[in-house]
Each structure stands twice: as C-alpha cells, then as structure tokens.
C-alpha cells in the first residue's frame, strides 16, 4: 500500500502544479490587453501603465511565473485590487463558511441518500421503491436556486421557523445545506439502489439466505458492505459538485463564503482573489480525491494497491 500512497501523493503534486499554471495563465489569457481590461474602459494611458507595473505584466513571462510561484510558496496570495486587503485575510474569513456548508451538505446527502437507496433496493417494485426513485429523479432535476428560494418562502416567510438573513449562526446553515445536498442525495440514492440490486443477485447472498441468516443481517452485513464501494466513488465525485455548488447556494442565501467572494470578484475583475479562490477550491478537491481513493482500500479488501 505504501508505494501506492506515495504515487498518489506525487500525482497530487502534479495536479497542484497544473492548477497553479492554470491560475497563473488566467491573467494572460484575457482577450486583448489585460492591463487595459483591469484598469477599465475609461482608463488613461498612465493608469494602464500603472496597472501593468503593479501586476508585473511588463516583465518577461518566465520571470512573472517564477515570482508568482515564489509568492505562493511563501503563502503570499497578493492583495485585492479593490480593497487592497491581503487575499489571505479575505479567504480566511470566507473559507470556513464554505467548508462547513460543503461538509454538512455531503454528510446530509450521504446519511439520507444511502438508506433511501438501500430501502428502495430491498423493497424493489413496491411503493417505497417508486417513491424513492421519483424523489431522486426530482432531486436531480430541480434547480438548486429555485429550491433554495422556495425553502426560504416556506420555512422563513410562511412558517417563520428559520430566519432568511445570513448571520453565521449554526441554524443559518440548515436551509443552505438542504438546498446544496439535494442533487448529491439523489445521485447517492440512485447509485446505492443500483449497486445493492446488483449485489443482491450474487451467489453468496443466496448462500447466506439459504443457511438461514436473518434477512436483515444478509442485507446490512453482507450486501451493503459490498455495495458501498461504487457508492463511495459517487460520494467522492459529489464532493466536487458540492464544492462548486457552494457558489450558487451561497448566492441564494447571501452567505459570505468563498462562492460569493468569487462571483463578486469575477464581476469586479479582481483577479488576485479569483486566482487564489480557485486555487484553494481545486487543492481541497485534490486532497479529498486522494482520501477517497485511500478509503477504498480500507473498505474493500479485494482492492490491493501495488
């Protein structure tokens, strides 16, 4: 297993390098003159020159890249164009909000999605199965921003149970987490159902039943454990969806997370924040992918990494 871990960590470094190159390239891929674009439509020649010097765009590309990497290594992500606040401080405020939202959502999607899928598979063809699959299909198709607004209408306006104004309190995460979890919950339920159904037709399940084991034990001890491997893949992949989805969800609920920061910065062309935000989210995703792959080996003894 150790060489495999080593190889995966090396791969992680490679992905990180790729992401650094992409975020560095962003400024240089802007159509036209980036200094002109950033300075705005009515900028004077002087202010354009100022922007160019400030961003180091007057230097040769390799020098610019070396500087960029050098600053990254020291943990210096630059300062916001607009507020001149260090990017690390902006991210430090917004990152915990997005991270909590993502973790709660994924946990909710898993804790609800897996049992739903198991019940649907075990009671295949019954009303419970049909109802679960209809809910899952709806969950895949519903626009998250519409779901979120409807939840606000129902729980904040009509019932008055939860406030709709973001204040950072634990209860303020409930509606956003439900909103963001719905799509992943649906995918996880569908994947759990289909891999359970596949496992339930295997010979060893029939054997377990034939030797008189309780149905419950067969389903939950024998079948679910083996059905979980593909489910884990879907959960891991969904973390990516959820990280990206925070952007939309935070906008619905006016949360001051990284998504809101990113969108505002894209609209403002505040590139240091955009670059750093994307870098941080992509690196988080890479680490989660690594952890998911390592978890396979723990759950499924058939997987042996050389």
């Amino acid at each position, binding site marked *: 297993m150790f060489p495999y871990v080593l190889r995966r960590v090396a791969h992680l470094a490679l992905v990180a390098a790729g992401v650094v190159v992409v975020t560095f390239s962003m400024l240089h891929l802007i159509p036209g003159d980036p200094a002109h674009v950033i300075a705005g439509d009515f900028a004077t020649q002087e202010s354009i020159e100022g922007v160019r010097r400030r961003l180091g765009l007057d230097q040769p590309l390799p020098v610019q890249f070396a500087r960029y990497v050098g600053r990254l290594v020291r943990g210096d992500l630059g300062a916001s164009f607009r507020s001149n606040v260090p990017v690390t401080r902006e991210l430090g405020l917004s990152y915990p909000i997005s991270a909590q939202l993502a973790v709660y959502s994924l946990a909710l999607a898993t804790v609800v999605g897996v049992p739903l899928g198991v019940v649907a598979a075990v009671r295949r063809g019954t009303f419970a199965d049909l109802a679960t699959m209809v809910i899952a299909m709806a969950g895949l198709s519903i626009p998250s921003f519409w779901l979120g607004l409807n939840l606000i209408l129902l729980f904040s306006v009509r019932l008055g149970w939860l406030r709709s104004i973001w204040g950072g309190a634990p209860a303020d995460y409930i509606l956003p987490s439900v909103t963001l979890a719905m799509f992943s919950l649906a995918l996880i339920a569908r994947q759990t159902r289909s891999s359970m159904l596949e496992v339930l037709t295997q010979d060893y399940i029939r054997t377990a039943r034939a030797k008189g084991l309780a149905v419950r034990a067969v389903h939950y001890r024998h079948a679910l454990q083996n059905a979980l491997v593909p489910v884990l893949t879907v959960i891991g992949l969904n973390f990516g*969806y959820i990280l990206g989805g925070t*952007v939309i969800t935070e906008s619905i609920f006016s949360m001051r997370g990284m998504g809101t920061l990113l969108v505002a910065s*894209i609209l403002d062309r505040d590139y240091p924040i955009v670059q750093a935000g994307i870098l941080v989210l992509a690196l988080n995703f890479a680490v989660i992918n690594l952890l998911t792959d390592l978890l396979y080996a723990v759950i499924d003894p058939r997987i042996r990494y050389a």
Partner: protein
Amino acid sequence: MRRRGGLWRRFLRHRSAAAGLAVIAALVVVAALAPWLAPHPPDVQNLPGRLAPPGTPGHPLGTDELGRDILSRLLYGARISLVIGIIVVAVAVGIGVPAGALAGYHPRYDGVIMRTVDLMLSFPGILLALVIIAVLGPGLGNAMLAVGIFSVPVFVRITRASILSVRELEYVQAARAAGARDGRILVRHMLPNCVAPLLVQATFRIATSILTAASLSFIGLGAQPPTPEWGAMLATGRVNLYIAPHVTLYPGLAIFITVLAFNLLGDGLRDVLDPRLRAAH
C-alpha cells in the same frame, strides 16, 4: 431495420421515457411558435401594472417587476434554454468525441489528451466554467462556451473507452488488413459503436447544461437582463420574493420540468439502448 423497430417499441413502452420525449416535443413546438403563442411581446414594460398576480386578465401568470407578461417571457425563454442545451452539447461533442477517438486510437496522443482531461477535472463542479468566464467575461455566449468546455471531459472518456474496447477486435483488424485508412476505420467501423453511450450521455448533458447555464445566469455571470432567460428571470424576481413569489415560481418550474424531461429521456434511452445496464436498474 427490424431491430430498430423493436428498439422504438421498447422505448415507447418505457413510460417515463416516452413522457419525457413528449414534454420535450411540446417544448420544441412552444419555442418555435413563441411569437404566435405569446399574448404580449416579451420585453414590453407596463410599470403601472407591475407585479400583477397570476390570473390577472390578459396576464394568466401575472407580470414581473417591470410589468412584463410572465407567460410571454417564459415562452420566449423556452427558445433560449433549448438553444443553450443544444449548443453546449454540440460544443462538448464537437471537441470531446474527436479528442477521445484520437486518444483511444493513437497511443501517441493518449497521454497528452488524457492529462489535459485530468487537469480539467481537477476543478471541482462548475469551477472550470467559472475560470473560463473569469477570463472571457460574463454573458450568455461566454457562459455557453464555458459550460460546453466544462462538459468536454465526459465525452472524451466515453469515446476513448468505446474505441479502446473495439480497437483490437477482429473486424477492425480485418478492415485494416483490407487496406482501409485510419480515418475510414475510425469513422466507419469504430465510431458507430460509441453512438448509443454518446446519445445517452448527450441527453443527460443537455439537462445538466440547461441547469448549469441557468445557475450561472442566476448569479449574474450568464444571460444578462432584460433577456427572458429563465435563470436571469429568477435572479431579478428574487428581490420581490416576499411580496410577489409568482415571479420566481414560474421560471423555476419551467427549468425544473425541462430538465426533468431530458433526465427521464436519458434514463429511458440508457435502459433501452444498453441491455447490460438494464439488469441493474
């Protein structure tokens, strides 16, 4: 020919898929006939009659914050959403299928193409689309391009996997032995094998693309007002969420139904076209 008839019948017997196709057909008709079906032009403002509730005479679904007829805007919005879905998937297929075929057929290009795909997939969720919009700037055209590029990897992977699975088969060897050129072998003999999985994926991808593009419009990075795009309509309507929820209700419902229809169709196509998967679902 007989086999195709069998597929069509099997498809029609798949009730949810047939329902999905019927809804899509209805949407296409509505989109095509929007100028004739809409009771009002989509962008005519009437400030005294703003935020009229559903059921107001002349405005069956009410009016929005500028007094524009919501039903008319929804009908025109159907055009935009369907065009978005089709263009996005066309971009993704147009780049993804040739790249995947090349990667599967020529080991020489496999490494560089698949590493590029890996890099694209290292941006979680819609973040890759955000990167592209950050560079190109907000707007519906750029959002469609961004969602299209964001959808390329899945088509590269499916095409490559299908090509790899038939590359060493005897009928391909036979074609090669008969002197067929690479391009001909790829297009005439190998790509037809990918049609079924690609069709299924393209259908799902239209659903995802409509949803993603609407999300981008909702956060202000896609279609800009006054375009009657459904996501953009929701974004402007949310300001009056408490006093006029109908302004956000109908566009959201329209997105939901459209995406649901394509998802149902995709599920059905997969069941019908892929007998291996049918056992599991």
